[in-house]
């Protein structure tokens, strides 16, 4: 196992290198150049301070040296300062990450909590009316434009019924609430965003579980279990599900970029102060240090997530011992 882990980590080094090259490349090859927004837009910049700014970002050096210097700063977790408010990029990311993790964590939890049983149920009643109803629902689920659904829900629950807050993560008077009131305030603000972000994923996970279950129940050991008299429920939910769930580990690994990067579409609609929203604002403000920071941190965490998924897979499936 240890050998497998070490090999996997070593194999990811070139990928890490590639990630930094791509991020650096996209930013530095864009028309206009790295500091042009700060300088060209500002008539008060003297040639002298422009030169100083160039030096600060090593722009007076050849491209490969810039890359090496940038990477060596990355290794010390120095992502530089934001162009927009001069704050440390790492601090800006640090304060946004919890909101995104909370939102995506809860919605992924919802997806698995509801999606897997739905898929198993659908597979158990394969080709019956119940299966067809669930199948139609899942198709509707992943075809519906979620941002439109978000608008409709906001209109119904926030504007017309006035049950739930429309957007944001807390009320204006949040600081004056009791601890319980604060918690309730967060819950109310989470209901709509979590439901909407979970919606599409729910459909695909239940569909995926259904497909895997249908493959697994064809295996001999399931027939054996049924033949020795075990109840159908037990066979499905215990014997078959365990094996059908294996590929889902990989799905979790693949879901991690979304988990960390957040969705700027949903975060923008719900004014959710997360990573996606930060990326959106940074991109529009041409805030290069923040953009590069988010890209690199997001990609590295994704890489770690993939490694974790592979290791979990190998631990759970003895057939994969590399």
């Amino acid at each position, binding site marked *: 196992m240890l050998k497998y882990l070490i090999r996997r980590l070593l194999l990811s080094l*070139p*990928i890490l290198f*590639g*990630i930094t090259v*791509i*991020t650096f490349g*996209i930013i530095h090859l*864009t*028309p206009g150049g790295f500091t042009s927004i700060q300088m060209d837009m500002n008539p008060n910049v003297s040639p002298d301070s422009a030169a100083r700014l160039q030096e600060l970002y090593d722009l007076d050096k050849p491209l490969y040296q810039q890359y090496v210097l940038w990477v060596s700063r990355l290794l010390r977790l120095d992502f530089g300062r934001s162009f927009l408010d001069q704050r440390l990029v790492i601090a800006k990311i640090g304060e946004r990450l919890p909101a995104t993790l909370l939102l995506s964590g809860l919605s992924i939890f919802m997806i698995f909590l509801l999606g897997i049983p739905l898929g198993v149920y659908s597979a158990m009643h*394969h*080709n019956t009316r119940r299966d*067809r109803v669930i199948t*139609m629902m899942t*198709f*509707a689920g*992943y*075809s*519906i*434009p*979620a*941002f*439109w659904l978000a*608008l*409709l829900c906001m*209109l119904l629950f926030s*504007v*017309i019924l006035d049950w739930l807050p429309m957007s944001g993560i807390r009320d204006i008077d949040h600081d004056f609430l009791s601890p319980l009131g604060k918690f309730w305030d967060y819950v109310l603000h989470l209901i709509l965003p979590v439901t909407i972000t979970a919606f599409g994923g729910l459909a695909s996970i239940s569909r995926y579980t259904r*497909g895997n279950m*249908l493959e697994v*129940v*064809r295996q001999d050991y*399931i*027939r054996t279990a*049924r033949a020795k008299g075990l109840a*159908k429920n037990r*066979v*499905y939910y215990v014997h*078959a599900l365990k094996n059908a769930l294996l590929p889902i580990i990989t799905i979790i690994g693949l879901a991690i*970029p*979304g988990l*960390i*990067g957040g*969705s*700027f*579409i949903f975060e*923008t609609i719900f004014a959710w102060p997360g990573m*996606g929203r930060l*990326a*959106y604002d940074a*991109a*529009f403000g*041409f805030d290069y240090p923040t*953009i590069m920071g*988010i*890209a690199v941190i*997001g*990609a590295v965490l*994704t*890489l770690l997530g*993939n490694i974790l998924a592979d290791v979990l897979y190998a631990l759970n499936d003895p057939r994969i011992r590399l």
Partner: protein
Amino acid sequence: MCKRIAVLGAVLVIILILLSLAAPVIAPYAPDKQDLSQKLLPPSVSHWMGTDQLGRDVLSRMLYGGRVSLSVGFVAVGISLFIGVLMGALAGYFGGWVDQLIMRTVDIVLCIPTLFLILMLIVFLGPSLFNIMVIIGLTGWTELSRLVRAEFLTLKQRDYVSVARAVGASNGRIIFIHILPNALAPIFISATFGIAGAILLESGLSFLGLGVKPPMASWGNILTSSTECMREAWWLTLAPGMAIFITVLGYNLLGDGLRDAMDPRLSGGDNRA
């Protein structure tokens, strides 16, 4: 049952394509003709889907918006197909260092969250119909290349490939004339789902002002303008949302039906467990 649903998908897709193609002929008004005396009218005989804040006919804008969705879907997926099939074919056929190089590149691209990559590229290149098609296409080929590679890995072991090689066929000829046609079915299915995804993505980006810019009509940006008057003008919210929903549903149903037709194991009636 599955067949009926797939046919429903195919019918939806064909109707939508025909409507978009015929838009200049059947649209009752010019899509950008403003008439402020006619603004925010509810659906009626003269304006089937009502009018918007500038008095433009919503039905006509929807028809032209359908052209945008259609072109984004097909062009973006076309670009993804070109890159994905080429990369996957080369990796699967040649193996060795070519395979390593291509698949590690895919791994790298997959590590960068796609939406974030798209956001970055749109901001730097500027939002426009052309850019959005190219960007969605350029970021959507990785899964496809894995699929094509897997197909090529199996297909290149077949006897007819050895025979083709034995009679002296070139690599290019074996890849494109002998193997690729046999791998087309899964590619086609993946492309169908890809179109659905691209249309959904374009409408979301246009909704946020990152895609097709007004005054050009797109279902996404019609929805954006509806947010200013959701309570008064429900038809402005309903029409584009339903259009996106039905279109994406059509492609998804079609894709699923094709997949079932290809893989009879999943649609068979065997349910003894």
